[in-house]
Structures are given as structure tokens and as C-alpha cells.
């Protein structure tokens, strides 16, 4: 028998070059892979910025910011981003006005009233609702919700803000419901018991104790939902139309920032034309809006985490 001892065996193994090489290389390879996510952000910023600068060498930034008309395809084009922002705002306001009460109501029910069994049934259904592709929601808005609204209210156009607004609302309900429910569930039970013990009803406990305690988590969920509604693309390109305007009328056709990007991309904007570069100026505006929302949401949820 060979007289190996354990010390030698370990040294033998340790000395093997390939093992040590792998150990040294792995962190470097993984770091390179990780840098892809940072490069993506840089890529987005550089692409949007450089092409937006190109756009502003052709169109004055003052017109972009102050004009209220957007007519990229006319022979005498106007480039007032405000018209597209108004479109996005109309959709977002309708969506949020519809989704926040319902999403919060659902969150309160799930966190404060529902039994474990009910929660186990309803949460997956909300997950399914969140997983439905937005192009399907767009079809639903155009072929089901719009005719329904026009049946009740005939002066509404085929393309309008109400139907896609409501459907975007449906799309963000699961997000508000599940994130707010998480926030409410993490309010310590002792606080609830304190309120109930002093004679509050369950409803009073919800409004006077649980909601105030969870408010920053709830705000974070709402702001994230707003960001999703602003960035939502397919529902609005299918059901909202393609006529940018800065009016407050929600019964007529409109265009959002995302809707414009899709319209240009699915048509043929010649590479290097004004319309082509406007794609990036609109994309940049959209990016700034959603980034702002995400930063606000992160601020809220950090605040919430500090509290508990």
C-alpha cells in the first residue's frame, strides 16, 4: 500500500493548477457578465441621447418643448411633444383613477379580511391577470370594451381615451393590489391588536392604523403602477388611435408617446429622416418620465423599510 497521508492528499489537490485557475477566473468572468446590466443602461442612455441631439440639430428644442401640436407626417411638420404627453397623461389618469381604488380595496380585503384559503385562490388569479400579454389586452379594449362604452355613450369615437385607459387600469390592478398587500401584511400584528383591543372595528383599524402605517409602501406601489401605465404601449397603440392632440377631450382619438414610437416603427420612416430621429427624442422623454417615477417609488419603499 502507498503510504499517502491526508496532508499530502490535500496538498496534492490544492496544487493542481487547473482548480486554482478556475477559482481565480470565475469571479472575473462573472464580473464581466454582471457588467452587461450596467452596459445596457449606458447603451440606452447613449443611444437615446446621441440621436436626440441629432434631432435637435434639425428641430429647435424650443419648438419641441413649447409647441402644442405634433404632426410628424404632415408636409409642414410640427414637433410639440406636449401633444403626446397630454395623450399619455389622459390614459394614465384614467387608468390610475380606476385602478387605485379597486387595487387598494382588493389589497385591504386580501390582507385584512380574507381567510388563508381565499387568499391562496385569489393571489394566483391576480398573477394570471398580470401575466396576460398587453397585445391581448389591446384586442380586448378594441373589440369588447370600446363597443360596450359606445353602446352606453354613443358620442364616443371608435378610438378614444376611456377604453384603453380603463384596460390599462385593469393591467395595473394586480401590481397595486399585490404590492400594497405586501406593505399592509408587514404592518406588525401588535398594532392591529392594539386598535381592536381599544374597541375599533376592523374597518377603523384599517383606516386609522394599518393604512397610515403602510402608507409609504402603498405610495411606492401606486407610483410604480403609474410608471407602468406611462410606458404601456400595445393597448394604447391598438385602441387609442393615432391623432396627437393636446385637448382634454377623452372621447376622441389621441396618441401617446409610446403609441407614436410604434406608429413610426411599424410604418417605414426612412433612416436619417426627421421622423426617424424624433423616435429617439420621444423615447428619451418617455425614459425620463418613467425613470423619475421609479426613483420616487424607490424613495418611498426605502422610507417604508426604515419604518419597520
Amino acid at each position: 500500500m502507498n503510504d499517502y497521508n491526508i496532508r499530502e492528499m490535500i496538498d496534492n489537490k490544492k496544487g493542481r493548477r487547473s482548480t486554482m485557475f478556475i477559482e481565480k477566473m470565475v469571479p472575473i468572468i462573472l464580473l464581466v457578465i454582471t457588467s452587461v446590466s450596467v452596459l445596457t443602461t449606458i447603451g440606452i442612455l447613449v443611444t437615446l441621447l446621441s440621436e436626440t441631439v441629432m434631432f435637435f440639430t434639425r428641430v429647435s428644442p424650443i419648438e419641441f418643448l413649447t409647441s402644442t401640436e405634433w404632426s410628424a407626417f404632415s408636409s409642414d411638420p410640427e414637433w410639440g411633444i406636449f401633444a403626446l404627453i397630454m395623450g399619455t397623461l389622459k390614459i394614465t389618469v384614467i387608468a390610475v383613477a380606476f385602478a387605485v381604488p379597486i387595487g387598494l380595496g382588493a389589497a385591504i380585503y386580501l390582507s385584512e379580511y380574507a381567510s388563508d384559503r381565499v387568499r391562496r385562490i385569489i393571489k394566483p388569479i391576480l398573477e394570471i391577470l398580470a401575466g396576460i400579454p398587453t397585445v391581448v389586452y389591446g384586442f380586448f379594449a378594441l373589440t369588447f370594451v370600446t363597443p360596450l362604452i359606445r353602446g352606453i355613450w354613443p358620442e364616443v369615437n371608435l378610438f378614444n381615451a376611456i377604453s384603453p385607459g380603463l384596460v390599462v387600469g385593469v393591467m395595473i390592478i394586480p401590481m397595486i393590489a399585490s404590492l400594497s398587500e405586501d406593505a399592509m401584511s408587514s404592518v406588525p400584528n401588535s398594532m392591529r391588536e392594539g386598535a381592536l383591543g381599544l374597541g375599533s372595528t376592523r374597518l377603523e383599524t384599517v383606516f386609522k392604523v394599518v393604512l397610515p402605517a403602510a402608507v409609504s409602501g402603498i405610495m411606492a406601489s401606486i407610483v410604480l403602477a403609474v410608471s407602468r401605465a406611462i410606458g404601456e404601449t400595445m393597448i394604447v397603440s391598438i385602441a387609442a388611435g393615432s391623432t396627437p392632440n393636446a385637448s382634454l377631450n377623452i372621447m376622441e382619438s389621441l396618441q401617446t408617446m409610446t403609441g407614436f414610437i410604434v406608429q413610426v416603427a411599424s410604418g417605414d420612416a426612412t433612416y436619417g429622416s426627421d421622423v426617424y430621429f424624433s423616435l429617439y427624442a420621444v423615447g428619451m422623454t418617455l425614459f425620463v418620465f418613467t425613470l423619475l417615477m421609479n426613483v420616487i417609488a424607490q424613495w418611498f419603499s426605502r422610507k417604508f423599510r426604515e419604518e419597520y
Partner: protein
Amino acid sequence: MELINKNEIGKKLSGRLLLNKSMKYIFLLCTLVGLVVLATLLIDTIIDGWSYLTTDFFTNFSSSRPENAGIKGALIGTLWLMATTAPIAIILSVGTALYLEEYAPKNKITDFIKINISNLAGVPSVVFGLLGLTLFVRMAGLGNSVLAAALTMSLMILPVIVVASQEAIRSVPSSIREASIGMGATKWQTITRVILPASLPGIITGIILSLSRAIGETAPLVVIGIPTILLFTPTGVFDTFSALPMQIFSWVKMPNPEFQSITAAAILVLLFILFLMNSVAIYIRNKYSKRF
């Protein structure tokens, strides 16, 4: 004098209890809204599209005549897209998650990477489309190929898989990790033989769920310029292709009412694929997830 006025409280109490009870039902109604919409959407689509789900529908290419139109090109294109997106996304995001959880030093740069990933998750998909159009389609010269779309999709779903994988890796208790190190295993051996196997169900669930998001994603494909009517199927990753959501988007815009029915049929196929993927994810989560 009594400390509390029983009459006063008694008078108010019935109102308070009534409000409590009625609000409970209002909250329940709110919860049911989602359920009702989901049911309406499914039933409406099934009524519209069920009768169009024939064999021809699966074997025909898209056509301007609704009676001849099928989803062969779109369906195979979607499969190509997923098969190409999956490996790219998996390598990128599991690698990132491993680095962040196992190797990253606690410093400002790591914090920055983490904040960056959570911000990336909030970027609208249409902006990823613009990135893909500039970077992959034009600068890299990939054109509107399967690879260009897959790279774009991979970057888009990266944050979701990273976060899911991080959670799965974090849930492996340190006792197992220490046992492995204590037995003389190196760090990489511990990762490949102990940590990854233990966190695999969580990682796979995250991957399937984000792929099912990518499968229905339309906006980046539109921006990249994927054709909607294509009379051949791709034979490699450098070929151009069409995809199911693109097909749905182009049919939705057709004025002919018969197109509404074949759109519904295509949606049913898409939803069925999503349902299948989600079921597999839930099955894996329930069957293989170990509680330590």
C-alpha cells in the same frame, strides 16, 4: 359619574358595525373585479376564436384573406425566438445573480449595480426596442433577425431573472455552504455542487415566468421592425422571422371583421402557451422547492 357613556356608545355602535360590514363587501367586490375581467376576456376570446382553431390554422402561413390565414410562420418564429432568448438570458442573469450574491464585495460599486438593475426593471419595453434597433439591428448589422430580437428580449427580461435567482440563491442556508467549505471544497465547487442544485427550482421558476413575459411582448419586436407577413420559417438565428404577438398586432388592425375572429384564435394559442409555461413553473416550484 360613569367613566363612559354607555348610551352614547351604544347609539354609535350599530352604525359603525354596519359600515364595517358593508365595507367588507365593497372590498370583496374590488377583489372580484380582476376575476370578472379575466373571465370576460377569456369567454369573449373563446366565443370569437374557438371555431377558427382548425388544423389549417396551424399549417397555413399568414394571408391577406382571412379564410386562408394561419399562424405557422408566427408560431415557429416564436419558438425560434424563445429558444435563442433562453440561453442568452440564462447565462447573463444567473451569472449576474451569482456574482452579486457570492462574490461581490460590499462597496459603492456593488450598490450601484444593484440600483441599476432595479431601475432597468422599470424601463418600458418600447425603450428596449429602441436600444435593440440602434445597437443590434443597425450597428451590429444583424438586421431584423432572430438573434437581434433575442438579444433585445434577453436584456429586457434580465432584471426579473436576476432578482428571482438572487432570492433563490439567498434562500440556501449558510450552514450547507459552510459544511461544503468545511469539507475542503473550493468556492466554485461549493457553488456548482451545492448552491446551484439547491437553488435551481427557484431559478428555473424565475426563468420560465420571465420567458412567458417575453413570449407575449410585442412592443420591442415592432420597434425592431419584425415583419408581420412572412411566407417562410427561419432556418437559423440570422434569418428574419415573425412572432405570435406580432401576428396578433397586425391582424387586430385589419378592418375585415373576419380578421377579428382569427385574431381571437391566435390569442387563444398564445394564452395556451402561456398557461402551459406557468403551469410548469408552478409545478416545479411546488414539487422541487425544498424548505430548509
